[in-house]
């Protein structure tokens, strides 16, 4: 087990190297450059060239790449061109809203998705099942930003219950923080809950057809115990995978929702960095997201162990 863990953790290194290189090359090959964005619309070519030089962007690309590797090895993600501060600082500052948003959204997705999936499977082909699955289909088809905008209109503008946008950091209190995250978390979570519900339902249906379920029923076990104790524990493995993927998607994918709700998280950071061509920030965030993906996958794999004793890693 320890060997397995070590092997998995070591495997992260080449992944990072590939991600780092690809991110660097792609971004630098894309047209547009930060100097002309900083210099503003009325700047002349001379101004832009001067800025280009001052920012060190006129050095050959391979040299820039090697320099970046060097700093990376020392644990330094470099300085943001636009924000004039270390990238790692900028990222840490944005982690709080993104992690909280992701956490709440995942919680909402799980709390809605799993019960809905289980109930649908238990009452297979009933009106309940059909209405849940119809809702899930709608949920999967509606983009989260649309849901977000609709919620802003109803709960923010018409009813005035919740702030339309912006983020209240934890230090300003738990309640304001929750209020500011409620709508974005719901609009993200609802959409993901649809996916979780569908997966849970289908894997529950498979499990419920297994012989051991028949055996438990025939030995006179109550339906509740059959479904929740015996079936769910086995059916949850694919769901767990989806939750893991959801979590990873949300960390990198809250981009749109953060823009709609004006939340200064990682998503906003990367969007604005791309628009400004703030190379070090883009590279840093892409790397971070890649690390998050890998680690979440590892955690999901480890979670299988506790759920299914048949699984062994060597």
């Amino acid at each position, binding site marked *: 087990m320890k060997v397995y863990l070590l092997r998995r953790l070591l495997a992260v290194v080449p992944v990072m190297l590939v991600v780092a290189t690809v991110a660097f090359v792609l971004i630098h090959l894309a047209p547009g450059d930060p100097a002309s964005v900083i210099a503003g619309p009325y700047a002349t070519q001379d101004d832009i060239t001067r800025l280009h030089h001052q920012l060190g962007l006129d050095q050959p690309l391979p040299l820039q790449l090697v320099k970046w590797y060097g700093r990376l090895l020392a644990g330094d993600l470099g300085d943001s061109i636009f924000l004039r501060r270390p990238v790692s600082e900028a990222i840490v500052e944005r982690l709080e809203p993104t992690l909280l948003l992701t956490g709440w959204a995942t919680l909402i997705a799980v709390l809605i998705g799993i019960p809905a999936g289980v109930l649908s499977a238990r009452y297979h082909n009933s009106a309940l099942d059909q209405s849940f699955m119809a809702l899930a289909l709608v949920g999967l088809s509606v983009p989260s930003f649309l849901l977000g905008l609709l919620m*802003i209109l109803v709960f923010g*503008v018409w009813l005035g219950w919740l702030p339309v946008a912006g983020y209240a950091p934890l230090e300003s209190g738990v309640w304001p923080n929750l209020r500011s995250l409620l709508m974005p978390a719901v609009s993200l979570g609802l959409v993901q809950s649809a996916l979780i519900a569908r997966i849970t339902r289908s894997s529950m249906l498979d499990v419920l057809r297994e012989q051991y379920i028949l055996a438990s029923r025939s030995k006179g076990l109550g339906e509740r115990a059959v479904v929740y104790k015996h079936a769910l524990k086995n059916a949850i493995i694919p769901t767990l995978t989806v939750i893991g993927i959801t979590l990873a998607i949300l960390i990198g994918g809250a981009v749109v929702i953060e823009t709609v709700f004006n939340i200064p998280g990682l998503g906003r950071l990367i969007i*604005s960095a791309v628009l400004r061509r703030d190379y070090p920030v883009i590279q840093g965030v892409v790397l971070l997201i890649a690390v998050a993906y890998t680690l979440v996958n590892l955690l999901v794999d480890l979670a299988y162990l506790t759920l299914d004793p048949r699984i062994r890693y060597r």
Partner: protein
Amino acid sequence: MTTKALTVLALLASLVSAPATTAQETPRAGGVIKAAMIGEPPSLDLHWTTAVIVQQITWHIYETLYTYDKSFSPIPMLAEGHSVADGGRRYTITLRKGVKFHNGKEMTSADVVPSLQRWGKMGTSGKLLWKRVEVVEARDPYTVVIHLKEPSGSLLYGLAEPNNAAAIYPREVMAAAGDGQIKEFIGTGPYRFVEHKADRHIKLARFKDYAARPEPAHGWGGKRIAHADEILFIPVPDVAVRLAGVETGEYHFGQNIKQDQHERLKRNPALEAGVVKPYGWITAVPNHKQGIMTNKKVRQAFLAALDMDPIMAAGVGNKAFYRLDGALFYPEQGLAHSQSGVTGYNQKSRERARALLKEAGYKGEPVRWITTKEYDWMYNTALVARQQMEEAGFKVDLQVLDWATLVQRRNKPELFDIFSTGFTLRADPALATAIQCNWPGWWCLEEKERLLGEMLREGDPRKRRAMIERLQGIFYDDVGRVKLGDYFLMDVTRKELRGFRASPFLTFWNVWLAR
């Protein structure tokens, strides 16, 4: 108590509680003004960038020697006044005494001289003016002398311009920055810099020791008062969120709201929809350096083909927010506005365009027009103009890019034939980006450069007007740029934000929050 007395009391109470919207209302000190801005400033160093958002935020912090009055003429700000000698070649500027920087130090010529030198080295219009400056010297702590190689009618305009402004920084701040951007944001303005949390806010607070000018506010000059305790400039890139935020009272001010919302917002008693007028032109810039547009006849055909009303309607959406005017400067700029020489604007003549294309020997080469959806008015105007061009026989390859790519490509003459842009108001005609040669599009013409040189020297507005009329003639004959029309922006404010007026230079001094 009698009924009469009760009525009087009730009346008095209603007077106290009713929001006083009369002009005589006494400004109230206190509160935090929350302004929803379109994005983040790329820098907080005014000498570094021409981005308009930087000017809008930072000129609450920094001030300039001169500023503009209501009709966009330069008036003293940090300067007390000046005298001109030596046939217009020597400007002796006296500084106001007792003006303090936010770090507590008094502003003197020891700060002003290096500030002007730095701006002359880095600022886009600073560099243009500095070509004519021989030397700047501090005669004494309160006197700065600028020696010019030749007279300049543009010097004071340049010193007053808020965009990429000649801001006065403390000497030590510039010394610490070296060739880079300043790291400490210290000025003499009514508000001082507190903090910048990227993508969250820029916070300014009232500067208690601000030395206001004694005369009443006039244009952007005169007495500036910081009524609010703080201003928060909050980047809110999504326009729908900016508007919703102002509607719910989350923000007091929302920048660049879509003009088609104007009618709806006018009916909301809690809001004020302001027209930013004048603001700028929507423009198609032909490439004079390389490609098909270097052919003057092709450019003339392009101009001849266009029917500006549908183009501007598509770009702006609401008639109250655009104006079909071919003149190079705005009616609001007094003498600089003239219709003389505006010969080719809005011709709507497909036949003439076809004839000109034939004369030019145009063989259907695709015209590469680069535009962006990041500013939807650029994309929408280009779309309609393309259709009109194609009806006249052009073949147009409309390339939609993101803004960062567009501003990079427009600097490379081999990559485009036309690009979309907007030119915002420049108070000094001679410094207007729209007519400079060293800017993308490279409209360089011996006769025009000579005229521009004369304009830079000339200070008399009447003589300048005659030059502007000649310039307009050249502009339309040579088709330097294709001006599609004037466009205005819409700012939305809440009614409790008092004293605010929508203007091309956004300001929150002399603005207060009613209870």
